[in-house]
């Protein structure tokens, strides 16, 4: 394991994390969240179109603090911070479960970064020559400047393999026409542009498409999670030009694969932050709630599950920083560690969600208790990019693909 002992988590990374903690503590507490998304249960689930409330003022503050620029390379006007900093930020977002396009934007950033790197490699001649100038950097600059973005790689079938994209790209001259559907697009109604996987002659490419492009329709899903929005995108002859080609046809799947460890690590970190909230909240309840003349935490049927929650969270959290550190310093290790992190975080979230309702008893089953807001967010992220057993199946495939045992495969 050729990585810094401390995960490379130094003072700079700590500053990012602490400032995030401070801002979110002030601006995104649990009362704020409840007021924002859960004031009215009928509105939440029974409106014709499900509302997707978020705090745009908070978003502006995030931009001012440079959070969108955090992961953007310096040559594209970003801060080019380490992945461990990005993970720490995602963890804080998860801890407060705040609705915002930040996580989606960070994920899109990772895909664009991978695209830019590949294009640069190509330009440097170490890859196939490109017929168009690399466009990814320009889109990264927009993100650095505060433009929210998200990815649209997934077909309605829910396959996580971008090769299965249900969007077709047809090129004539300098313009490309997109037709088809992308599903499970996170924070679609908050994003200003989408990074879309589309197949065409030459294979799968990635295209950046502004949300207001004619022919593009955003069809909101009705989802259980109240802390985000999700939608289907319908592409009816969406016409874009070469400045939208962030990954040339044939390079799309490879680029997404290169970005996948970072994508998984970000979601895993979000899951860990929220799971820690579930642990702390359930612990606090077990301290104060009394039954049978004892705080319920006295009973091992409550105490031991809470301890298991803690051990699950810690397992996942350690893997998240290991994966992030590998992305920074030891890329060969990243795919394995990131899959492990997402697997552990997904399972931890599932268990913490389950116990956080059960151990809160009757009150935990009611709308007024905040527990359900986190449970629903966790269930959503548990399945995003594949749940625990999905990741383990991929890990086993890694072993079959390579020499050596799983622990080093």
């Amino acid at each position, binding site marked *: 394991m050729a990585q810094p002992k401390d995960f490379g988590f130094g003072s700079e990374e700590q500053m990012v994390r602490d400032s995030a903690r401070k801002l979110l503590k002030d601006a995104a507490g649990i009362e704020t969240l409840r007021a924002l998304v859960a004031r009215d249960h009928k509105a939440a689930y029974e409106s014709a179109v499900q509302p997707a409330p978020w705090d745009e003022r908070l978003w502006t503050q995030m931009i001012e603090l440079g959070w969108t620029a955090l992961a953007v390379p310096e040559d594209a006007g970003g801060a080019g911070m380490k992945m461990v900093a990005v993970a720490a930020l995602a963890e804080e977002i998860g801890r407060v479960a705040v609705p915002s396009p930040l996580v989606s934007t960070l994920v899109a950033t990772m895909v664009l970064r991978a695209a830019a790197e590949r294009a640069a490699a190509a330009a440097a001649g170490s890859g196939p020559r490109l017929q168009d100038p690399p466009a990814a950097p320009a889109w990264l600059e927009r993100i650095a400047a505060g433009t929210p973005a998200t990815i649209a790689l997934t077909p309605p079938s829910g396959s996580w393999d971008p090769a299965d994209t249900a969007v077709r790209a047809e090129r004539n001259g300098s313009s490309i026409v997109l037709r088809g559907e992308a599903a*499970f697009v996170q924070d679609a109604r908050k994003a200003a542009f989408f990074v879309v996987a589309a197949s065409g002659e030459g294979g799968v490419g990635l295209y950046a498409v502004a949300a207001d492009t004619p022919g593009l329709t955003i069809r909101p899903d009705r989802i259980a999670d109240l802390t985000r929005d999700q939608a289907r995108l319908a592409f009816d002859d969406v016409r874009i030009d070469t400045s939208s080609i962030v990954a040339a046809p044939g390079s799309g799947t490879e680029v997404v694969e290169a970005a996948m460890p970072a994508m998984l690590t970000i979601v895993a970190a979000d899951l860990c932050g929220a799971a820690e909230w579930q642990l702390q909240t359930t612990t606090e309840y077990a301290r104060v709630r009394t039954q049978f*003349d004892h705080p319920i935490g006295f009973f091992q049927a409550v105490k031991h599950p809470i301890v298991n929650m803690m051990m699950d969270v810690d397992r996942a959290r350690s893997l998240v920083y290991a994966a992030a550190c590998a992305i920074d310093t030891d890329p060969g290790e990243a795919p394995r560690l990131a899959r492990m992190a997402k697997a552990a975080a997904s399972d931890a979230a599932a268990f913490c969600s389950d116990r956080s309702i059960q151990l809160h008893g009757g009150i935990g089953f009611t709308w007024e208790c905040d527990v359900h807001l986190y449970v629903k967010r966790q269930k959503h992220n548990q399945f995003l990019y594949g749940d625990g057993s999905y990741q383990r199946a991929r890990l086993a495939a890694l072993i079959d693909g390579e020499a050596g045992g799983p622990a080093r495969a």
Partner: protein
Amino acid sequence: MSERTFSPEQVEFRDYCRRWIAENRPAAPSFRLPLSPIEVMTEEQRRYLCDWQKRCYQAGLIGSDYPKEYGGGGHRGFQAIATQELGRAAVPYMINIIGLNMAAPTILNHGTDEQKRRFLPPLLSGDEIWCQGFSEPNAGSDLAGVQASAVRDGDQWIVNGHKVWTSLAHFASWMIMLCRSSSTHKYEGLTYFIVPIAGAKGVTVRPLIKITGETGFNEVLFEDLVVPDNLRVDAVGKGWTVAMTTLLYERGAAEGAGSGGGTSLDERIDALVALARGMKRNGGSAWDDGVIRDKVMQLAIRVEAMRQSARRAKVEPLTEHPMRLPLQSKVQISELLQDLAAVALEIEGPHASLYLGDAHAPENGQWPLAYLNSYGFTIAAGSNEIQRNILGERVLGLAKSK
């Protein structure tokens, strides 16, 4: 149910049930029917379901085995047949589920003849809806910690207190209620009553909102409600014993099926297999995934085992402690329903994000809803933690965790 051992009368009754259901299957409602009766919210749902129960009752498919003098059919071994046929036909469930599954058997076992004559007929017909008043804000899982008080005053009782988790209270005429009649003894201080709800002076019903966003269960506040002594069930101080009887019959409630149909557990397993066959996962279908297959089969085994344990519970030479199997059913079913829903979400993968009413949600988003609602069953009526204490203490004789 062994059709081979059916008497001629039973065979005839089964054929009658099938015929009657075929001819009387109700038209599908224009509105959504919730998954379980305890989620019934709107007046139109109530009317639709009450009408259906009444017709089933009048046809003899409900209350078949109750004595004639109490409004029943006076048969033996008919109800199970009717229930099975209603289940197979997947017609709507009986709305008066708490009345049928909990109040009726309790009254039949512990009630006076007068109570049986007065309450059972309208209960079976669905003319009077029942709810249950056991849980309290501070006695969620400690059932014996009930604080709602009943103070004797001549030949009547003055009831004060606060009950939660009272599904259907917003439609109910009556509640089976556990009260504290003495603070000196924890268990012997409890007495069991039938108390009026709808329109009764001193009773306030407030809807509670569930984590699903649904209402459909309530809190009920009692302020100096006057209850005549002839509404007391069994002796003063016998409340705990009577409540245990009630919980034994709650099984049906947990199953969401009720005495009359709804989705059977077998059908839910079939639904999981079908769901898995239809979902893409890691290059194949979810059903091609060995882990998914294993999990679904684990559930199928638990479903079958539950049926077989219910069967074995009635075969004396194959049971030890008489309560050993019956006391398990609440834990078994509630956790089975929870795991069923959790596995369904795993099968759905990203589709598990799609909630009730989403255009693309598999099975109209029922599984995320079922998952959240499943906690109602693992928490309510003595949380499963408490159920395990009871099993360990009452069946295995382990020291009381109090």
